[in-house]
């Protein structure tokens, strides 16, 4: 990582660089900017990541971050239907890929544009950062849109089981509820509450703008300065989330019964916060357990005809997360048999660790995955977005080096420390026959 400032750009302080990506701060208001020139295609990606997600919600307004994200497309001072400059129209009519996503720790808005239109994307994101309309007459129809998104998710046995596992594993911490929130909160949260949420979190000093692609750094930063400097920083400090999950003191179980065709088993254990040193070992372990045909659980479950697929969910979050193995069962397979095999393999890792060959293979897989995360401007911005969410964007640029340092001893230790019964939450989806 380099702290050397090679070039000075008006309105910005240079902070650091890593992996070719440079970090600046907009002096006027503290907006963090990450920038990388990349000229392989005439394309640029502009993304604004707000450091707010469903983690910042509580009972009564779960799902607000996501509902607000939807309302952010309904118009702002300079980009709206009345002026015939609606956001979707402005961007899709130039062929841009445009969207936004919300997750536990962050909300991001992005545009992949032909590079000559980068300025327009920057102008739109600046405008809606502080001047979004957020009208009640817009919330009403958008609430039902989001409710249908919720209903579509509820159609999926996997989504329902996953929600139940998180809700059982986390009692106090807001990771208890999923990003889309509870149905009654989606339906009843007021526009006033959403506005308060917006006015609390949507400020330049609580956001990171990422710009990657085919442009001159000088011009792109000048454009960001031009549009975003009109905002002040937040008048109040951004409120921190102080709720901590109490210590789990015993195994937990959850069962979902619905009409369906086949069962699912999920075995979850509490894992550390994303920036913890153990995160890299967990990533290696998940490759060894369930990535590819040579992975341990693929051999034990798929090759034995017990599961149609098996995968790990080990995404790093800002706070402690979950390390989950999911297995989709073949028709007629007993849930407890699959659960026992997964837990038995965990025990095997605790007792015997992994082989050098497994370690090397997992590290090679991760090296290649990270190389492909540089294939395209959106891919880079998207990977950075998740690193920003967990608190340090250089998590992305230093990830491979940290993974290379993981040892067999590290894997054995995390298995012993974290994959213990008292920290576990096991979920079953039981497919029921329809009532006659």
């Amino acid at each position, binding site marked *: 990582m380099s702290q050397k400032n090679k070039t000075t750009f008006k309105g910005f302080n240079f902070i650091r660089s890593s992996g070719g990506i440079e970090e600046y701060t907009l002096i006027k208001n503290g907006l963090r900017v990450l920038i990388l020139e990349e000229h392989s*295609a005439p394309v640029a990606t502009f993304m604004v990541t707000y450091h707010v997600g469903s983690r910042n919600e509580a009972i009564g307004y779960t799902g607000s971050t996501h509902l607000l994200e939807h309302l952010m497309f309904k118009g702002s001072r300079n980009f709206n239907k009345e002026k015939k400059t609606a956001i979707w129209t402005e961007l899709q009519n130039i062929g841009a890929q445009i969207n936004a996503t919300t997750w536990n720790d962050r909300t991001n808005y992005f545009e992949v544009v032909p590079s000559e239109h980068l300025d327009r994307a920057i102008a739109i994101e600046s405008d809606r950062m502080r001047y979004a309309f957020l009208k009640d007459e817009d919330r009403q*129809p958008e609430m039902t*849109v989001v409710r249908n998104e919720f209903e579509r998710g509820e159609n999926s046995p996997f989504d329902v089981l996953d929600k139940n596992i998180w809700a059982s594993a986390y009692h106090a911490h807001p990771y208890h509820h999923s990003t889309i929130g509870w149905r009654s909160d989606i339906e009843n949260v007021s526009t006033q509450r959403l506005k308060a949420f917006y006015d609390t979190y949507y400020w330049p000093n609580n956001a990171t703008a990422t710009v990657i692609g085919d442009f001159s750094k000088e011009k792109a930063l000048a454009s960001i300065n031009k549009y975003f400097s009109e905002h002040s920083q937040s008048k109040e400090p951004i409120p921190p989330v102080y709720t901590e999950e109490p210590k789990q003191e015993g195994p937990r179980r959850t069962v979902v019964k619905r009409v369906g065709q086949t069962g699912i088993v999920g075995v979850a254990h509490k894992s550390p916060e994303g920036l913890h040193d153990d995160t890299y070992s967990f990533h290696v372990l998940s490759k060894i357990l369930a990535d590819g045909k*040579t992975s341990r659980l693929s051999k034990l479950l798929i090759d034995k005809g017990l599961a149609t697929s098996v995968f790990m969910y080990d995404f790093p979050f800002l706070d402690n997360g979950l390390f989950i193995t999911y297995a989709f069962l073949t028709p007629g397979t007993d849930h407890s048999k699959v659960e026992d095999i997964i837990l038995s393999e965990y025990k095997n890792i605790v007792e015997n660790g992994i082989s050098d060959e497994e370690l090397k293979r997992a590290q090679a*897989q991760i090296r290649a995955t990270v*190389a492909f995360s540089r294939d395209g401007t959106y891919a880079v911005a998207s990977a950075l977005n998740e690193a920003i969410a967990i608190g340090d964007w250089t998590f992305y640029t230093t990830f491979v080096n940290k993974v290379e340092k993981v040892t067999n001893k590290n894997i054995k230790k995390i298995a012993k420390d974290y994959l213990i019964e008292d920290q576990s939450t096991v979920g079953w989806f039981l497919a029921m026959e329809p009532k006659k």
Partner: protein
Amino acid sequence: MGIFSEQVVINRDIEGVESYVMPTSATDVVTISGSMLGGSLHSLDKNNKVPSMTAAMLDKGTIDKDKYKISDILESVGAELHFSNTLYHTHFTGFCLKNDLDTVVTLLAEQVRKPSFSSDELSILKTRIIGNLERNKEDTKKLALIGLLRNIFPQSHPNYRETIESSIDLIGKVSTQDLLSFHAKQYGLGSLKIVAAGDLAPESFNNLIAKAFGGWAHKKSEIPRIKEKALKTKGATKEINVPDKTSSDLYLGQAIGIDRDHKDYYALMMGVYVLGGNFSARLMQSVRDKQGLTYSIGSSISGVSFGADGYWSTWGTFAPDILEKGKKATMEQIQLWFKNGITEEELSAKKNTIAGSFKVSLDSTSGLSGKILSNAEQNRTVSYLDKYPEIIKKISLLEVNSAIKKYIDPKNMFAISAGTVA
């Protein structure tokens, strides 16, 4: 000239193999994609699952290597190779670092040339696929689409779909002998096309292809001529009840009677794009954005490749208790679109969208290689990719609105929904 004409290097030194290489400034990574004729329409008998099972067995072992050895070679360098099957082709896609290209291409050739088709592996694969198909019995979107296609195409038409139960039955009947026979008949040089994009040099890639595929037997194959035409769609409604579902999937559609080479195709495509091609299209703006009835709704033309007369469909999701309201709102937009056509302003905006999308699609090596392969499969020159935005630019408003009137008949759409009947 354009970016594809200037940068894609084509090689046909080996008879029966076309390679397309597009070096980019991506660092270290290469995406490979390719295909040969061998889709489900090429099946030797009534079991149209044999081609897809043949493709799915390619990574389950070769004469010299079992599936673990194959996976070990790929995973030890972080590379991936995937096989799939469509109506017309067997496809493969690979991702690797540039230094591992030799390893991956050599392994790819071995997998397609010398698969072992072990009976044990076939048995495991069948269990997996049947398990996934069982799960599809509660997938409301898949059920509605299958229902639509079964009602607007005759059984022998490429766009027809069998029921999930039939698919399970057919998968269960596939034998190793079926796979061996199909491979012997279909797999070989002749229709093989390979595309590579990323951090590589054309000459060294073509040397690899020559080494890996040279000497493979030639197989005569062609796209089956489509004789069957779609059924005349009559206005009808059908409901499929799927218990315990909180969202229903609705399809409205009909056959259009033309393929993508027809002179009216692009005009009709632009008309449908204005109706439901993206978020700023009419259906999303009205049924979702204004009325809040759905999370997602869109309209498109499908099943028009290689001479098949395709279909137009509109799809949306609705809570069961507002399904009828959603359907009515959707129909109103379709009627309005049919009656009045689209405006010059709408057409112009969508032309700009396509021109801009063309540039955005150049963003990644996987996007590039997929685009080049799809174009090559249609037997089009790479320059067609450069000309495409210009072709779209020339379409007139009159052509679009005439095509809508000529090929769409809202009175005779087939409507089908799948979900929990309210």
